[in-house]
């Protein structure tokens, strides 16, 4: 059976600000979907709502994984059910070593039935696997002893997110600008690694403003978000068009969504 992540008429608000206004999206396991759209259109919000961020309130619609109600699950249950998100801005956890954090995470995700306090993956086995994956990502082994995202450079943070993707092997992954803040070499390395780890092996939802990542992970579908809705869906050629020509055509074609987007941006700057 192929796994399916299904999003139906999803509405999401932060406080009393409505951000997503009816998103529909179905991702089958093994498919790659590109999610594009101008700044502030709601791409990260969709990812965070899928992952269950408590600040993003689902006010309508449904998310299911193989028919199971994802919205009824806590974020940790979602992770254990096989959902992952590489964050645009990962959080620092001072004093917690990458290796300890990853060993807990990997154990829980691989053994969803594990009770608290039960044994973790054996240290030796875990270290060996982590070492291999880190070498593959050309990460220094010292990295495992650093504190989670604490004082990481932008590039290190993104690479650490990819390392987590590699260790956790989810069924579905949202990658939120995992290619941003990287130099040209690092973008290529990240793109290749993601292709290696996830392309056609997971359901991928790739949020990006650049073309490199999609070159290595050619999308089966490209979706354009504007004003909190997916206004257009196409194939890889749509992504190419947007990279080349930007969002002018889209903005003109969907004036209502464009107005909603402007409104959100205006609220944002009013809030600042």
């Amino acid at each position, binding site marked *: 059976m192929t796994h399916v992540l299904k999003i139906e008429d999803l509405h999401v608000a932060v406080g009393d600000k409505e951000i997503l206004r009816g998103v529909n999206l179905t991702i089958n396991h093994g498919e790659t979907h590109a999610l594009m759209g101008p700044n502030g259109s709601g791409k990260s919000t969709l990812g965070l709502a899928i992952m269950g961020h408590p600040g993003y309130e689902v006010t309508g619609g449904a998310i299911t994984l193989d028919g199971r109600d994802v919205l009824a699950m806590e*974020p940790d249950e979602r992770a254990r059910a096989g959902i992952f998100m590489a964050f645009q801005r990962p959080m620092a*956890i001072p004093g*917690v070593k990458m290796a300890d954090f990853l060993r807990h995470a990997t154990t829980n995700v691989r053994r969803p039935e594990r009770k608290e306090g039960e044994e973790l993956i054996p240290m030796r086995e875990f270290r060996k696997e982590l070492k291999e994956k880190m070498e593959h990502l050309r990460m220094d082994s010292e990295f495992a002893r650093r504190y989670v995202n604490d004082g990481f450079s932008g590039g290190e943070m993104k690479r650490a997110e990819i390392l987590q993707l590699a260790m956790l092997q989810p069924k579905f992954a949202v990658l939120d600008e995992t290619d941003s803040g990287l130099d040209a070499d690092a973008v290529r390395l990240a793109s290749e690694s993601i292709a290696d780890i996830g392309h056609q092996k997971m359901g991928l939802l790739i949020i990006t403003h650049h073309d490199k990542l999609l070159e290595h992970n050619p999308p089966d579908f490209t979706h354009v978000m504007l004003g909190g809705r997916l206004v257009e869906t196409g194939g890889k050629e749509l992504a190419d068009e947007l990279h080349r020509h930007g969002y002018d055509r889209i903005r003109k074609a969907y004036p209502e969504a464009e107005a909603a987007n402007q409104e959100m941006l205006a609220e944002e700057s009013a809030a600042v």
Partner: protein
Amino acid sequence: MSTDAPAKPEIGEINKYNFRTETKGIFKAKKGVNREVVNQISDIKGEPDWMREFRLRSLEIFESKPMPKWGGAIDINFQDIYYYLKPTASQGKTWDDVPQEIKDTFDKLGIPEAEKKFLAGVKAQFESEVVYGSLEEELAKKGVIFTDTDTAVREHPELLREYFGTVIPPEDNKFAALNSAVWSGGSFIYVPKGVTIDFPLQAYFRINAESMGQFERTLILVDEGANVHYVEGCTAPMYTTESLHSAVVEVVVKRNARCRYTTIQNWANNIYNLVTKRAYAYGDATMEWVDGNLGSKLTMKYPAVHMMEPGARGEILSIAFASAGQHQDAGAKLVHEAPNTTGQIISKSISNKGGRSSYRGLVSVMPGATNAKNNVVCDALILDSESRSDTYPYIEISEQDVQIGHEASVSRIGEEQMFYLLSRGLTEQEASTMIVNGFIEPLVKELPMEYAIEMNRLIQLQMEGSVG
């Protein structure tokens, strides 16, 4: 009694403190404290007159002193406590001499394991007197003295008479006076000039008699250029009636010498833990207190370093964890008495399930202590809205040319941090425990390995049931 070899205890087993071994006390002094009880203690120990007089004088001071007006609420009936209990007729010389029931307790504490491994200096205090201890030959060869303080009074009278009660005189405070009157057990260490001990000397002890005060007395003398790390860890069984632990620790660090004193204490919830710890650091000497306080009903503890001569350094690292029904009033005291002295305090406190932690610190720069440098950092983490944290920093400066820094922060576990960990499959409990362990990591990494592991496990125990 079973003769089976006990299951190999792990160091972490020390944490499981709610067991209790029946004690056949050979002698128990009467409840309460008065001249008769103090004389009796001195008689049984066969002490020289100077110590008996010191005890009796301290008793008078104790009786005349008021209770401290700061810190936490203390509700103790001093006449309802046993001040002395002698568990065995004589001090155990070898492991074979130690009674089985005491061995059973030690097994649960991991002592035999420690013994097997080399920890030469393990001094285990059972009840109020050291019953078992072994000194490694190596130490003896270097001229190091590591013994219980009772033995030291008999065998090293010249050192004891010169230093005992000089760093913390009985006049210092009511509880120091009480300890001075009824003290029993504790460690005496003398490290000769230029001698470095390259493994930590350790002591384990625990309280195991109901309503039974534990008044150990420790004196450490580190001679010029010498270096020692002393570690005490202890756990206490759970009891329902009030219990008092009031220790006095005096340390003298001579020129160019270095001493680190590490404590991890996890007391049962009904214990008052009122401890006075102070060190004198002389020219270019370094004194470090690493102090971890968990459990107890009320802990009041402010390790102090007096920097007596130029170039002396004092450093205090303090971790306090206050959970339900607990008040940790912990802190530090640094007194700059000479020029070019440097002091640092780093304090981390955690309050959980309605617990209360307070940082109480004093930084004092005396007249003449020019170019003193001092830096204080205290961070508090509050885990829920019922819990509380306060900071009471006192600064007294009598010199112009000094550098004093003070930073304080209070934080809660951030929603974003929590979400990040949950999104990776950690449960709320695991995530918050991880964040708390991360919070104290900069101090925990200063601990010897087995204590660092124990500390993390203690935190885990304290965090159980704290969410959801």
